[in-house]
């Protein structure tokens, strides 16, 4: 077959060559004739040739015109023929509405679901960095845990000033300080992601304003007005792209900022890992004015990130060397004081290209994105196999007709073109349907979801060109290739075999069961693989964090010292709030604490040690979270006591300083759990004063700092002995925690309406990190998995019923020969089931192999065999197969044998 194509190509090419050669000869003959005529008329030989050419007009031009006539004619014929083909194809498709609808729907759904699901996943996990010339941007990084480098919290403002002044490798060095703070936009207050940036930040990144202006050098001076720039997404979601937003005031940590502009495009800060991007940018000089910790950028706190555009002819390696030198110089002049684990002994800075520095860590979080792509691919491939089988079946249907037409002398090209026209129409209709569906789905998936700590995740998936092209190519390819295949096969030179056996063959082969097996196998295999994602996601959702997340409601209150609150007035108010809240129906228990073991970024940490290993410079001490709370905390969040006792009303200011530690803390400090009565010393925020306390109890471990992380211990102190102005109110509810949130707010307001509730949410929302992300992904995966199954079932039904219909004649003959209707139905069922069962077995085996491969590649905890999937998956296929075989068989068995025989 390939030889034939080559020959055809050669013929076409040689025809062109011959044509051009002949034309050449002809025109040259003309010119020669003319020349001779002119010579005979007596003109001088030299002028004659020129004159002949002039009279002719441009020789090459006329050659082109002749060639144009040739191709133009060809195209014209093709166009006319094509229009006729398409019209005919349209009519044929209308006559078989079931097939057409199945095919168009498979294509439309496959394409729409694939592209919009991928858009959603990409918008959550893989965010672009739309900056100018990213290859010339580099960041200063420092070592973080587990041998990785991080760009976060690299230096302090003082260090930044030193480095910026001394360095030469960067044309410009900028700093940014990402933080979270409550933002009041006039409508509501919630905690948002913000960045405090130096004056050249936007310019270095090459960003433009969509509205107004961006932060510039003039804004980053002491005494400059407090201005703010918004992200496009926030402007769209909260202000509806209203240009009047310029000049409006927003309050960040209750400080007023004037909105001066909106960033254009999809830029949401440099942190491409966080699905919630930066909402607002303010100048660094303004951030230093923010009152509340940790937003306050203190001179020595090392919370800045630094990046810059490399000077021409410098690369990041050279920059790295220079920065390391500067770091060494700084260490010599102003050595660091290592007080705790989070402060290193020396400044270990280096420079990396920005794309490297920002790459997300290889954890399950970012893996989740890839895992979610698998079910998307499954849907796409099942849709493709559906289409392929549909087109093959249709081809087989027409095998008879095509054979007859060939026998009567019809040209092969013509017949192939007809089949192609059908494929094109289906592809176009499917694409149109996909267009509508995709837009509808993208709109449906654009929403705002509450995420941890009361932030809002704005989902706004954007269509990705690459996905669209890939998916469309695969699907259209399936339609066209599998539409053409039977046409090409059945229009082969010798039409007789087609005539004889038409109706029992698919694509020229006698065995129609092959495609069925194949369809079932691929769908099952991919479903098994998609089940991996479902499992991972469900596991993540079901993880036991050590506290009773699902029945908690939280609110954060801030007794701002600048507003006149002090220790005693705050305590009185807290007690009043707690008793008020306790009285409400629906709230079982309530407590106040300075933080939670995980999920709250503002929980204080402390360096802890024992009296025999006092704090000393250069000596590492242990690191734990330090939570001061009312005694009811443990009960409220569900942390149980292992030994000793919890603090209670006896432990007040003035009595012995006590502490309750978690198991991990006990083991880290003392090496055992037998620590009741031992002394510990701690420095909250790793700074003096040193506090001493006696351990009176040990509680069970919880996740610490993040969900699933249990690296540190927790030390609990009585709130009566330690105080902090920002407190979490935690309530355990008997009903839905959602309903407890307004109750908490009301309790606070009733006691004192001036106390703001900064963040409020349910346990999972506030504490469980990418909880909502998981939910979105879970929902997506379930929908995709279901769709895969439905598509596969539909495809299976289509082709099986088609095959059974073909066998009507055979059934008629059998009945004429004495078979009973019941026997026929049973036979149809059995024969139909066999390929399905075989397909199931192949699919289950193949799927298990794929799972094994994925497990090795992704290094994720995937079970080789998922019993639930194994049991559940075959069911829809069996159901579809039963219906597909039984119903047509019943119809066939009702046919009068005489009618069937007549058809022979």
């Amino acid at each position, binding site marked *: 077959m390939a030889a034939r194509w080559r020959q055809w190509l050669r013929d076409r090419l040689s025809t062109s060559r011959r044509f051009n050669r*002949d*034309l050449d*000869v*002809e*025109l040259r*003959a*003309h010119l*020669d*004739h*003319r020349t*001779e005529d002119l010579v005979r008329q007596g003109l001088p030989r030299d002028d004659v040739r020129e004159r002949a050419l002039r*009279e*002719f*007009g*441009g*020789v090459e*031009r*006329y050659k082109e*015109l*002749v060639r*144009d*006539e*040739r191709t133009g*004619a060809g195209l014209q014929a093709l166009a006319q023929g094509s229009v006729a083909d398409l019209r005919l194809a349209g009519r044929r498709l209308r006559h078989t509405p079931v097939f057409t609808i199945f095919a168009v729907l498979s294509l439309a759904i496959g394409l729409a679901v694939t592209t919009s699901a991928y858009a959603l996943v990409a918008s959550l996990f893989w965010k672009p960095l739309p900056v100018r010339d990213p290859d010339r941007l580099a960041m200063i990084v420092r070592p973080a845990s587990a041998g990785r480098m991080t760009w976060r919290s690299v230096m302090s403002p003082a260090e930044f000033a030193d480095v910026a002044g001394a360095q030469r490798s960067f044309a410009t060095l900028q700093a940014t300080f990402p933080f979270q703070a409550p933002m009041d936009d006039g409508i509501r207050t919630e905690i948002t992601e913000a960045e405090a940036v130096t004056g050249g930040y936007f310019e270095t990144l090459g960003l433009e304003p969509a509205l107004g202006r961006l932060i510039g050098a003039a804004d980053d001076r002491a005494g400059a007005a407090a201005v703010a720039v918004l992200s496009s997404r926030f402007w769209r979601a909260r202000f509806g792209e209203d240009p009047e937003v310029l000049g409006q005031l927003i309050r960040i940590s209750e400080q007023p900022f004037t909105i001066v502009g909106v960033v254009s495009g999809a830029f949401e800060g440099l942190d491409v890992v966080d699905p919630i991007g930066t909402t607002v940018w303010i100048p660094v000089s303004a951030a230093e004015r923010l009152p509340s910790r940790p937003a306050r950028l203190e001179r020595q706190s090392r919370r800045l990130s630094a990046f810059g555009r490399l000077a021409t002819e410098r690369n990041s390696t050279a920059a790295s060397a220079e920065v390391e030198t500067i770091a060494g110089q700084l260490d010599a002049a102003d050595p660091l004081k290592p007080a705790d684990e989070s402060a290193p002994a020396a400044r270990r800075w280096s420079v990396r290209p920005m794309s490297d520095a920002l790459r997300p860590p290889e954890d399950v979080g970012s893996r989740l994105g890839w895992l979610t792509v698998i079910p998307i691919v499954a849907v796409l491939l099942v849709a493709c196999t559906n289409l392929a089988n549909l087109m093959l079946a249709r081809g087989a249907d027409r095998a008879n007709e095509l054979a007859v037409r060939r026998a009567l002398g019809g040209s092969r090209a013509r017949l192939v073109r007809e089949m192609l026209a059908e494929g094109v129409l289906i592809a176009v209709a499917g694409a149109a349907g996909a267009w509508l569906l995709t837009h509808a789905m993208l709109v449906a998936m654009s929403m705002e979801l509450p995420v941890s700590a009361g932030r809002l995740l704005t989902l706004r998936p954007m269509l990705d060109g690459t996905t669209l092209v890939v998916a469309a190519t695969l699907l259209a390819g399936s339609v066209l290739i599998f539409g053409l295949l039977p046409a090409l096969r059945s229009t082969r030179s010798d039409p007789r075999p087609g005539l004889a056996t038409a109706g029992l063959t698919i694509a020229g082969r006698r065995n129609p069961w092959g495609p069925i097996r194949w369809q079932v196998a691929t769908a099952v295999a991919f479903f098994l693989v998609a089940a991996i994602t479902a499992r991972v996601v469900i596991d993540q959702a079901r993880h036991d964090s050590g506290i009773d997340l699902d029945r908690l409601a939280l609110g954060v209150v801030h007794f701002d010292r600048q507003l006149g609150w002090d220790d005693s007035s705050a305590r009185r108010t807290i007690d009043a709030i707690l008793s008020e809240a306790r009285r409400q129906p629906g709230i079982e228990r309530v407590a106040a604490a300075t933080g939670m073991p995980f999920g709250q970024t503002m929980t204080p940490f402390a360096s802890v040690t024992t009296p025999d290993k006092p704090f000393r410079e250069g000596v590492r001490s242990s690191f734990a979270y330090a939570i001061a709370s009312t005694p009811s905390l443990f009960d409220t969040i569900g942390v149980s006591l292992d030994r000793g006792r919890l603090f209670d009303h006896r432990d007040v200011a003035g009595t012995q300083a006590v502490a309750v530690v978690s198991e991990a803390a006990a083991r880290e400090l003392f090496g055992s759990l037998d620590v009741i009565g031992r002394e510990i010393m701690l420095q909250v925020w790793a700074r003096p004063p040193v506090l001493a306390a006696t351990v009176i109890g040990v509680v069970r471990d919880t996740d610490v700092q993040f969900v699933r992380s249990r690296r540190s211990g927790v030390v609990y102190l009585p709130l009566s002995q330690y105080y902090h102005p920002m407190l979490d109110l935690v309530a355990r509810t008997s009903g839905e925690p959602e309903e407890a949130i307004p109750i908490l707010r009301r309790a606070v307001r009733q006691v004192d309406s001036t106390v703001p509730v900064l963040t409020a949410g349910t346990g999972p929302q506030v504490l469980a990190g990418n909880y909502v992300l998981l939910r979105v992904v879970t929902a997506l995966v379930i929908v995709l998995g279901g769709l895969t199954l439905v598509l596969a079932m539909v495809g299976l039904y289509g082709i099986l019923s088609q095959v059974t219909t073909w066998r009507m004649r055979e059934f008629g003959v059998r009945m004429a020969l004495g078979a009973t209707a019941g026997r026929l139905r049973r036979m149809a069922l059995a024969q139909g089931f066999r390929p399905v069962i075989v397909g199931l077995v192949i699919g289950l085996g193949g799927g298990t192999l794929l799972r094994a491969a994925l497990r090795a590649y992704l290094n994720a905890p995937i079970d080789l065999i998922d019993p639930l999937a194994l049991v559940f998956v075959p069911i829809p296929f069996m159901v579809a197969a039963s219906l597909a075989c039984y119903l047509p068989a019943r119809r066939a068995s009702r046919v009068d044998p005489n009618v069937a025989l007549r058809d022979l």
Partner: protein
Amino acid sequence: MSPATSLLPGTLDMLILKALSLGERHGYGVLLRLQQMTGGAMTFEQGAVYPALYRLKRKRLVVTRWGTSENNRRARYYSLSADGRKQLRDETHSWNRLVGIMADALNRQPGEV
């Protein structure tokens, strides 16, 4: 002699058909015939006959063969096919009719309208 007139589009094809009706010719020969037929009053570049000839050949109004010319050059000879003859007859008839009507209409005196 009246000033040289340029061809109306489509008329070249008709003229070529007529030229060939008087016998088989190669491209240059067709051109000479055309000049004879029009008495030199029509101007067109000589090369223009070739796209027209190809068109006629595509429409199967003329057929071609390769031969040797009077001065021993290899040249392509064109002759009318049966369809070509018919086409010439029909088009001449239509043309004459059209010309007659147009001349009549354009030459009417004011009083006759």
